[in-house]
């Protein structure tokens, strides 16, 4: 528990985001999540500031995931605190320590994560279909038609894609994998969701091979 707290406050951003607190509650007054959850950015700041290690651990079990990361609090706080920024640090630390709250929250994010890590894109047209989002209504598109053709009708060639938001070159994706590896992102992912990690790892290996082949082909020319 102590280690978790120490990790939070040793993050280099900590001093940027926490400067003291007037307890004025302006952050909570403007916080969208405070409208809907038992959540208050003021509470987060006060807890960190008063160094109550146990309660910090408690809020990391659930509450920090309520934050919408809009940073309204940061723009409003007279003390230049950023409760949302502190939450971002706490989430990273929750992941680092493999906390259950982080695993629970990440589960529905799997598909997005897969897209992002493997293609460097996040939301693709094939994800935005009525069966994935029934609450978006029966006609989330105004023209009936095959998705592929509808995408081809976009007059920007890089956007004529279905399973990525735009066409991403292979070289770009492979560079992306190097970044994920060197910054420990893949390691965090492995701890959070082993199955997802395995799928992603296979995908990355395959793409890397494709890239090697492509490079060789270029060399042959």
């Amino acid at each position, binding site marked *: 528990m102590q280690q978790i707290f120490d990790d939070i406050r040793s993050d280099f951003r900590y001093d940027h985001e926490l400067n003291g607190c007037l307890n004025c509650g302006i952050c909570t007054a403007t916080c969208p*999540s405070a409208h809907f959850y038992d959540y208050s950015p003021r509470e987060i700041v006060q807890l960190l500031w008063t160094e109550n290690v146990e309660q910090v651990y408690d809020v990391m079990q659930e509450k920090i995931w309520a934050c919408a990361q809009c*940073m309204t609090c940061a723009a409003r706080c007279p003390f230049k605190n950023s409760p949302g920024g502190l939450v971002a640090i706490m989430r990273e630390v929750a992941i680092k320590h493999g906390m259950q709250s982080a695993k629970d929250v990440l589960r529905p994010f799997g598909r997005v994560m897969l897209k992002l890590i493997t293609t460097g894109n996040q939301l693709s047209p094939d994800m935005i279909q009525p069966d994935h989002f029934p609450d978006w209504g029966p006609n989330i598109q105004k023209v009936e038609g095959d998705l592929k053709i509808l995408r081809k009708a976009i007059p920007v060639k890089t956007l004529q894609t279905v399973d990525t938001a735009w066409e991403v070159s292979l070289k770009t994706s492979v560079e992306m994998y190097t970044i994920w590896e060197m910054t420990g992102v893949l390691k965090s992912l492995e701890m959070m969701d082993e199955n997802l990690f395995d799928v992603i790892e296979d995908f990355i290996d395959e793409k890397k091979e494709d890239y090697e082949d492509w490079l060789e082909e270029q060399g042959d020319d």
Partner: protein
Amino acid sequence: MKPTDNTPGNHNMTADGAGPGAMKPGFHNTDGQGIAGHGSFFQQADLSREEAVKATDWVRKHVDRRTVDLGDRMDDIREHMWELEREGEIIVHRITDVHKPATVKTLFGWEKKIPTNQLWHHKSCGQCGNIPGYPTSLLWVMNNLGMVPGKDYLDETDQTSCTAWNYHGSGIGNVESLAAVFLRNFHQAYVSGKQHGFEAGHFFPLVHCGTSFGNYKEIRKYLIESAELREKVKKILGKLGRLVDGKLVIPEEIVHYSEWVHVMRNRIASELQKIDVSNIRTTTHVACHYYKMVHEDAVYDPDVLGGNRTAIITSLSQALGAQVIDYSTWYDCCGFGFRHIISEREFTRSFTMDRKIKVARQEANADVLLANDTGCVTTMDKNQWIGKSHEQNYSVPIMADIQFAALACGADPFKIVQLQWHASPCEDLVEKMGISWDSAKARFQEYLKEVEQGNIDYLYNPELAYGGAK
């Protein structure tokens, strides 16, 4: 040492941390640079280590960290960027005369250069997958202003998203990965002109997404403040072959597309506008990550709502001659929440209905709600239908500022503005602007048959902007 013996972060209060230059570079620093919130007037006290400890103890006991000077003006990070460049640490991707910059004022009264030409389109992963009419409209407007694709702007496949949506949503990722992605993409922007025979720096990045914009500014600040972070990402960028003369490339400004629209608004209105929109009531929703993250950099103009709101979007509505209507929840977030829109949609839709759609309809009786970010447009566009189940029968068309501008300039609502991807009732707005929705739709359905045959119209010769390894 017990943690309670120290202040949070362990940076300021120990003998180790108290001496000049003894701290991590850049963070509440004691080396007189004043970049982490101290003004440039901040001076070193030159205390001995003992004196410093004594003084620090006094502060801890009496004042602690509640002493933050509220009147303290933040330092302009860009000045420190120039210093780093002088010291040979980084290369600044400059905005020069060839980029035909316009100068605007930011919240703190600082000047910001907005390049208007030779732009590298940095797309948005949510927007392109979901509301493609917003990049399309932007390119269409650029073409119609006479900009030449492949020379005056570039749209290429060698770019990734900023990955900040994922970071804010899931917590997976870290400052280092975000910084590496930022530097990778912006290095590519810097060298992208080469394949077309231009000098390095020819194209300047134009960021389409609010979150990318906020994230990149935040990350740039950390990079400039922290030698440690620079050192770490240099290794990565080196491995990727994305250093120039062994140095990191950092852009002079981070520029959002709606800032480009803001400075081009009068040209758009005078040279391209075809439709009188004086009967249209517009309201504005500006992305949180546009003006609340690194808020000192957001654009304000005293002539736009008295400078009480960030100028973008509203200024465009004004220039086009629409009726600009303010509303009480202008400052509120849309409810996107990064992870919420995917895994806790009841939060997202409740917030967007209660705080945005209902208010825009009831208070402003808006014909359209204009936004400048992927997440906001998606959230407010897609989540109206479900309102009916809670007897919230409110609906308002949602689109990006540039889509509205393109419509006002006579762009086709389907082929160019791509309104067919929107769930909100855009039909009413289009009709009110005097454009027939039905005949445009019929034309588009005919066009889809052409597309099936492979006869596709492009906004430009795609090969020009289709570089990058495949």
